[in-house]
C-alpha cells in the first residue's frame, strides 16, 4: 500500500473525505466504477480537467505543478517545499494571510480542504469550497500563478523559513525514529541521484535559501505550461471553462522547463547496507528496511504495491502474523512503497520491538521473514488485492483535498499523460498474477538490494514492561 500521502504539507491537519458512478459487484471482484472527465489545453499550455459530480454542493480546485524535490539543485535541498509555503504568502492582489482568510470565510476548511503539499515529483495546491465559491478559488490560484513575485519580500521568506524548520523539527528531529525515511533515501538512491535527499531538506540548506532562489524557481517552474488544473464536483462545465479563460487565459506561457536529470538506476542497489543508529528519543528498538523497486510509472508498479501488502498490510500479513502474533518479537509492523515516479521507487518495511528488548532478535526474525518472501499463496494475493480495492474506492469519497478524485485525475495526467488512469487502477491490480508477485519478490527482496537501519534506544527504559 502506498504510504499514506507521503508528502510534506503546508499544514498538518489532514482529514480525508464523492460523484462517481458505481455498481456493486460480487465479492472478490472489483466494483465497476467510472470517473468521468473532459480535458482541454489552453493556448498558454495549461491543461485543464473537468469532472462533474452534483451529489454534494462542493467544488474542488486542484493544481499539480510538475516540480518536486527531484528538481532541486545541490545545496538547496528542501527548496521546492519551502517555495510551496511562499505560494501562500500573498500575491499582487492578495495580501499576506488573505489566501486562507478569503477561502476559510468562503467555507473551505484550512488543512483538509485548503492546503499544498510537496513530494519528490510534484507540488500540489488545492481548495475544496462550496460550489458557489468556485470563482474565488480560481481567482486566487491564478493570482499567485501570475503575480506571486510582485508581492514577495525577504520578511515573508524569513518567516516561512522558520515555519518550515519547525515543520522539520515536528516531523523528524523531535521524534523517535524521525530520521528513518531520510536515511533510507540516502542509502537506496546513490549520491547525486535526485531521490537521494528527502523533501523536507536540511536545516543548513533551508538557511541558505535566498530571495533570488524564490524568484528563479518561480520563473523556471511556475507557469501554465508546467501545470495541470483540475476542477471537480458540483460545477457547470461551460461556466467553469469561461472562468478558466478569464483568469488563467491571460497568464503567459513560461519558458521551456529544463529537462529532468537522468533518473535511471540499476535494478538492484548492488550491495548490502546495515546501519545502527543510537536514538536518544526512542523507547524501544525499531528496524527499517528499504529495497529499490520499479517506479510508480513502471508497468510493474501494481505488483510492487501488492508485494508491500502481502508482507505488511493488515493483521493477516506475513510480517504481522509472524513477528507480532506468533513470535511476539515486535509490537507493531508496517510498510509500503513511497510511490516515486521516475527511475526507481523504494519499498520499505518496519518492525518496532518491545521496550527493553534485544534488537538482535527482532532483526533476525524480520530478516528471516523477508528471506522467505517469494512463496506467496493465491489467498495472500487475493487479500492484498481486496485491501487495495477498498482503499482505492474509499479514497474517491472526497472530491478534492488529500488523495480525492481531483488528485487522482491530476496524477494520471502528470505521470502518464492520461487522466483516464484513474479508471484503470483497479483493472491493473486485477491483472497481477501470483507468478508476477513471486517473481518480483525473488528479484528484489534480496540482500544485495537491501538497506537495514537498526534504531537502538540510547538508554534503558525506566522500568520493565513484562506482562505476568
Amino acid at each position: 500500500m502506498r504510504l499514506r500521502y507521503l508528502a510534506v504539507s503546508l499544514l498538518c491537519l489532514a482529514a480525508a473525505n464523492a460523484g462517481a458512478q458505481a455498481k456493486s459487484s460480487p465479492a472478490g471482484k472489483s466494483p465497476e466504477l467510472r470517473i468521468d472527465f473532459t480535458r482541454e489545453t489552453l493556448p498558454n499550455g495549461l491543461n485543464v480537467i473537468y469532472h462533474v459530480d452534483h451529489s454534494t454542493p462542493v467544488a474542488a480546485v486542484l493544481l499539480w505543478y510538475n516540480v518536486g524535490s527531484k528538481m532541486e539543485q545541490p545545496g538547496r535541498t528542501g527548496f521546492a517545499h519551502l517555495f510551496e509555503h511562499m505560494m501562500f504568502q500573498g500575491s499582487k492582489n492578495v495580501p499576506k494571510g488573505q489566501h486562507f482568510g478569503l477561502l476559510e470565510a468562503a467555507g473551505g476548511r484550512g488543512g483538509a480542504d485548503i492546503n499544498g503539499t510537496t513530494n519528490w515529483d510534484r507540488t500540489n495546491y488545492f481548495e475544496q469550497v462550496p460550489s458557489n465559491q468556485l470563482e474565488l478559488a480560481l481567482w486566487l490560484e491564478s493570482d499567485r500563478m501570475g503575480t506571486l513575485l510582485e508581492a514577495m519580500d525577504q520578511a515573508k521568506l524569513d518567516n516561512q523559513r522558520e515555519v518550515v524548520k519547525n515543520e522539520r523539527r515536528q516531523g523528524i528531529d523531535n521524534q523517535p525514529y524521525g530520521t528513518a525515511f531520510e536515511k533510507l533515501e540516502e542509502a537506496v538512491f546513490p549520491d547525486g541521484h535526485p531521490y537521494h535527499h528527502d523533501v523536507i531538506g536540511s536545516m543548513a540548506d533551508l538557511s541558505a535559501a535566498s530571495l533570488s532562489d524564490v524568484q528563479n524557481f518561480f520563473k523556471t517552474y511556475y507557469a501554465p505550461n508546467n501545470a495541470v488544473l483540475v476542477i471537480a464536483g458540483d460545477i457547470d462545465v461551460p461556466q467553469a471553462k469561461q472562468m478558466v479563460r478569464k483568469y488563467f487565459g491571460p497568464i503567459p506561457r513560461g519558458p521551456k522547463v529544463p529537462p529532468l536529470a537522468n533518473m535511471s538506476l540499476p535494478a538492484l542497489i548492488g550491495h548490502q547496507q546495515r546501519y545502527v543508529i543510537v536514538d536518544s528519543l526512542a523507547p524501544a528498538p525499531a528496524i527499517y528496511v528499504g529495497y529499490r523497486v520499479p517506479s510508480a510509472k513502471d508497468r510493474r508498479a501494481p505488483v510492487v504495491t501488492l508485494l508491500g501488502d502481502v508482507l505488511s498490510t493488515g493483521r493477516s500479513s506475513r510480517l504481522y502474523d509472524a513477528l507480532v502474533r506468533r513470535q511476539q518479537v515486535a509490537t507493531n509492523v508496517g510498510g509500503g512503497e513511497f510511490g516515486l515516479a521516475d527511475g526507481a521507487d523504494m519499498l520499505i518495511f518496519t518492525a518496532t520491538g518491545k521496550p527493553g528488548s534485544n534488537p538482535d532478535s527482532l532483526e533476525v526474525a524480520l530478516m528471516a521473514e523477508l528471506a522467505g518472501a517469494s512463496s506467496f499463496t493465491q489467498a495472500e494475493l487475493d487479500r492484498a488485492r481486496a485491501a487495495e480495492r477498498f482503499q482505492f474506492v474509499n479514497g474517491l469519497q472526497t472530491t478534492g483535498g488529500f488523495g480525492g478524485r481531483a488528485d487522482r485525475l491530476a496524477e494520471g495526467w502528470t505521470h502518464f499523460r492520461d487522466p483516464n488512469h484513474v479508471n484503470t487502477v483497479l483493472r491493473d491490480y486485477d491483472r497481477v498474477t501470483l507468478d508476477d508477485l513471486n517473481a518480483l519478490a525473488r528479484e528484489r527482496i534480496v540482500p544485495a538490494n537491501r538497506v537495514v537501519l537498526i534504531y537502538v534506544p540510547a538508554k534503558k527504559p525506566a522500568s520493565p514492561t513484562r506482562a505476568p
Partner: protein
Amino acid sequence: MRSANKTGIIALTLVIGALSSAVQAQAPTPPGPGPLRPYAFPPVNQFQLDNGLKVIVVEKHNLPVVEGRLIIDAGAQREPAAKNGLASLTGRLLSEGTPDLSGAEIARQMDALGAQYSTGGGYSTSFADVVALSNVFPQAMQLAAKTVMSPSFPPTEFIRVKNQALAAYQQSHARTQGLASDAFIRAAFDTAAPFSRPPNGTLASINALTRDDVVNWHRTMYAPAASTLLLVGDITPAEARTVAQQAFGGWKTTRASAGPVLNPIRLSTGTRVILVDRPGSVQSTVVVGQPGFQATDPDYIAMLALNQVLGGAVSSRLNTNLREKHGYTYGAFSFLDLRPQAGTFQISSEVRTNATDSALVEAISEYRRIVAEPVPGPELQGLLNNLVSGFPNAVQSVQGLTGRLQNLIIWGLPMDFYTTYRERLAAVTPEDVRRVATSKLKPDNLVVVVAGDLSKIEAPIRARNLGTVEVWDPTGNKVR
C-alpha cells in the same frame, strides 16, 4: 533555485515584464459568490431491535462504501481507578478470538473481504468499527458482531495485546505530545474523576490487569441495550434492518442500566504551570486551557464560534500570531475536547525550544484578549461562515458522517442536531461570543502544560511569572 547569476537576472526581468500584461487582465478584487446551492443533512433513520440495540441509519449512495460502528457504553470512565486501561484493553482484544475462530483466522477473513476492522475503548465508550465495500459489508458486519458478542480472549493473545498496550504507553510518553496531554487531564480534572486518567492506562495499571478482569468487564458491560449501531453509507434502511438483525439479533446479554459518571473538574486559583521534562527536545509541546465545557450546554454553539476566532481555523488568531507573525511553530490551534459531563478547552502547539516561553506568552495573551475585547463583527462573520459553509465538505465521506453522528450519541445531543446546526451557527453574534468569553474563559486560572527539554526552557518560563510553576514526572507526580 539557481544562484542569481547574470543570465538568471536577465531572464527574471523578462518574466516580470511578461507578467505585467497578465496583471492587467486580472481583477484586483476577489469575485463574490454565486447563488448558494441547497444542502440538507441526510435523514437520520432510527429503530430498535428486540434485544434493545438501537440502530441509526444514514444513507449515502454515491460510492459503494458502508461503515458500521457499534458503540458500547463501556468506556474508561466506567472502569474502577485501580483497573485503569481495562476498557481499552478489552476493546482491543475483541478481534483476537471467538470459540470457533482464532485471532489469526478472524484477521484473514476480514482481510479477505478487504474490510477495515478496528476495535477499542476510549474515554466514554468502547467500539467495534467496520468499513467495507457494500457488496461484502453484510459478511464483514456479521463477523465483527461475533467478535463483539462472544470473544474468547485467548490467554496467549491476552499477554500479547497487553504487552502491546504497555509498549504503546511508552511510545506515547517518548513524545512531548503524549506527556503533555496526560499531564493536562491530570491537572484539569479532580483525582476522583475518571477523565483525569489516561484512557489506555498507565504502566502500573496495565501491568496489574488480568485476563479475568477482561472477561468480567466484557460479561458485565457489553450488552445490546447499552449499545448503538450506526450504519452509514451505501445501505438502505431495509437492508440495514436485515444486516443489524442478522449480525446482532442473537445478542441476549442484559445489563443493569448505568447512570452518568461523575467527572468533577479541578478549579484552580491562579494559573498553574506544569512542566514535564523530555531531555533532548528541539521543540516543546505547549497546552493552555481549562476544564468545564460540554456540548449540552446551551452556549455550546457560541463556544464553537469563540473557538473559531481564537484558534479553530488557519486564519484564526493563534496561528496568525504564533506561526505567520512570529515563526515559533508549524501550527497553533485551539479546540474543544468535549466529553459527557465535562470536557476541556485547549490551545495546543509544538514550538521550537528557544521560543517556548515567548510562545506561551503570546498564547496566553490571545486567550486574554478574546475575553477583554469584543470580537469585531467581520472577523467573526468570516470564521463562522467557515463552519457553516464548510459543513458539507466535512461530511462527504461515510467516515466523516459516522464520526459526527457518534459524537451526538457520546455527548448526549439529539440525533436531529445537524438539521439546524448551520442556521444556529450563522445566528451567533459578537455579543454571544463576548458573553461566553466572559462567563466561561478564566485567563487568570489557566492550566498550562509544557513538555520539553527543561534544562533549556524551565528558567525562561519561570522568568515570565505566568503563575505557580510545578515540575512533574511523566506519571503526574510532583518533583518540585
